[in-house]
């Protein structure tokens, strides 16, 4: 039986919605594709037509949230931000969109974004990584760094970013405000690395 594009889209949205609910209730690891198919009113086989794995399903949510975060970022940036402030804005805009998924995100991100060599690279995870890095490179370019940042700079950035994500998924402070401070300081470190500039150790403030 052929189904229309519209009902395909509806199925896809429903799967994502139900999966998010189940991941939140049961946790990512304890939830099976069967559970999700059942909750979505689909056969498990049909579910695989949409998402080949549980991991892909979760990373699709992540990728879409980060995409929305980038749109928010484009809308929110004023053009007056300096480099570290603009990077701060892009990261926090993404995290705000990821916030509803936070309860189950730890194991998802660990599996899909791990920088270690793996046999099965999650294509959704890899796409999310590349899209994020492209946006970051664009920001860096806008602030006058003509050459594309080399692998050292981007590896440092990605390590900091993963560290921020890991801390954030586990951050017990109200509204994850400790993460915000961590982002701020991580970016100061990163900007110092790529610009070779000395650090502002707070002199401006400690008058």
């Amino acid at each position: 039986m052929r189904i229309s594009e519209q009902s395909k889209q509806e199925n896809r949205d429903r799967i994502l919605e139900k999966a998010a609910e189940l991941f939140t209730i049961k946790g990512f690891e304890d939830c099976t594709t069967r559970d999700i198919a059942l909750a979505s009113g689909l056969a498990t086989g049909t579910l695989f037509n949409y998402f080949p794995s549980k991991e892909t399903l979760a990373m699709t949510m992540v990728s879409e949230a980060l995409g929305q975060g980038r749109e928010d970022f484009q809308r929110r940036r004023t053009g007056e931000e300096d480099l570290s402030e603009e990077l701060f804005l892009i990261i926090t805009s993404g995290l705000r969109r990821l916030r509803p998924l936070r309860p189950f995100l730890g194991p998802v991100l660990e599996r899909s974004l791990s920088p270690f060599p793996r046999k099965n690279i999650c294509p959704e995870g890899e796409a999310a990584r590349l899209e994020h890095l492209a946006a970051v490179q664009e920001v860096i370019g806008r602030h006058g760094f003509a050459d594309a940042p080399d692998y050292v700079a981007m590896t440092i950035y990605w390590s900091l970013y993963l560290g921020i994500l890991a801390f954030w998924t586990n951050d017990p402070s109200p509204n994850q405000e400790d993460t915000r401070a961590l982002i701020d300081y991580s970016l100061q470190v990163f900007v110092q690395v790529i610009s070779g500039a000395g650090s502002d150790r707070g002199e401006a403030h400690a008058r």
Partner: protein
Amino acid sequence: MHAEEGKMTESLKMNMLLEALPKESATDPTGKRLAKLITSISNKKAPVNTFARIWILGSLQAKVTAGYFAYWLRSRFVDADKKQRLKSAAHLNAALQLFGAMGYLRGAVMKVGQMLANLPEVVPEEFAEVLSALHFEAPPMHFSMVREVFLDEFGCEPEEVFAHFDRQAFAAASLGQVHRARLHSGEEVAVKIQYPGIARTIKADLRNLRLLLQPMCLTKDWQDTLTKLADIERMLLMETDYEQEARFGKEARTLFTDADRIAVPRVYDDYSTKRVLTTEYLRGCHLNELLVTEPSQSERDLFTHLLTVATFRVFYRQHWLPADPHPGNFIFMDDGRLGLIDFGCTLVLTDEEWLFSNEPIQAVFDRDEPRLDRAIAKACLFDNPQEMTTDHLDTVRRGFLWFMEPWVKEGVFDFGDREFFLRGIDNIMEMTRKRYTRSVPMTIWSNRFTLGGRAFCYKLKGRCEFRKIYKQESASPGSSQTSLMPQTEES
């Protein structure tokens, strides 16, 4: 070449440090051991387990302060047996490391260090500077950080909450910063925003510091120090509760009329939360900016008068000790009024504390020396004056009589009198040196209040009829008690 220059500066710094550090005549006459300890600690990179750690106290002034801190702590266990001494030394090291990482104390510690490095020739001006620096600092927030705080607190961006919002902060507040903004209804406001998470960092640090110091407890005085540390913690954490500050501000606002020429800014509840406080913007300047304009004596006197009225008013009507007389909390307004903008650190006296604090004041008015001595002994945690040494009692009494000088002098009192201010400092120094520091916890608040206020008026070089203001404010309707003046003096 460069390396050698570096070495030179290092050794030069080391010498300066050695010069400035206190010496223990018995165990460390040259101060070298202490200097080594401090240097090794403050050169260590602090582990960044909380964000505020990126500001470490690495400066020379900070080392001098840490040196005094260590000296003072060590002197407490010099006489202990070897086992206890080793244990205490280990705790001292850990405490100093933690102290070195408390970056939000940076400004205060540097100012204290500058002063200590110039001992014993400390000038009153320096002392006044130190008093005005004793507050926590937070790293500055860029606008994107401010926006995140707003999204969490209000669910929308600052530009949506306000008709206009300045991206740049115009002032640093303790633990946060202040931005100017305009409400949709047109009012100009000041928006104070707290740095995320800093209150929890400070709380954790102070608790850890107390735990580290606990096992070094050897004497009754030491226990008293720990009790005071807990009270300091309470005092400083009050400043992080903007909701409470808003309540104090609103209450204070009802105490003054237009005729008083004292302004307390209106609080805008709809625009305030635990971490954001929005109040009316008062147009004017702070003390240092005022002093640059070389104000006339009558201007100086006017503001000193207003400051005295304001503090007596909240003291007698509300039984409040505004324990943070930081110069940034007072606005010299363009229209000649005095603005009081910060009620973050206000101690509300209990009835017992109220009577307790009035007892020695009354005794001075009654010229009842035995009663004054009894009140002093009680404040110093002794059962009666006979338990104190003559020198101890004399020193504390001298300090209290210094405090009372403006209260008993008829006519104009000159707070700009250098000799007067210097006597107060000398007394504090003497008490610290002789370790006559044991006292009820409330004295931390009242000392901060008194010394801060006196330092402020000293810088301002202002005069006022202090005794007359006292009489008026303590006797005015709404005050909970009539004047403490004896009847004979009134008649």
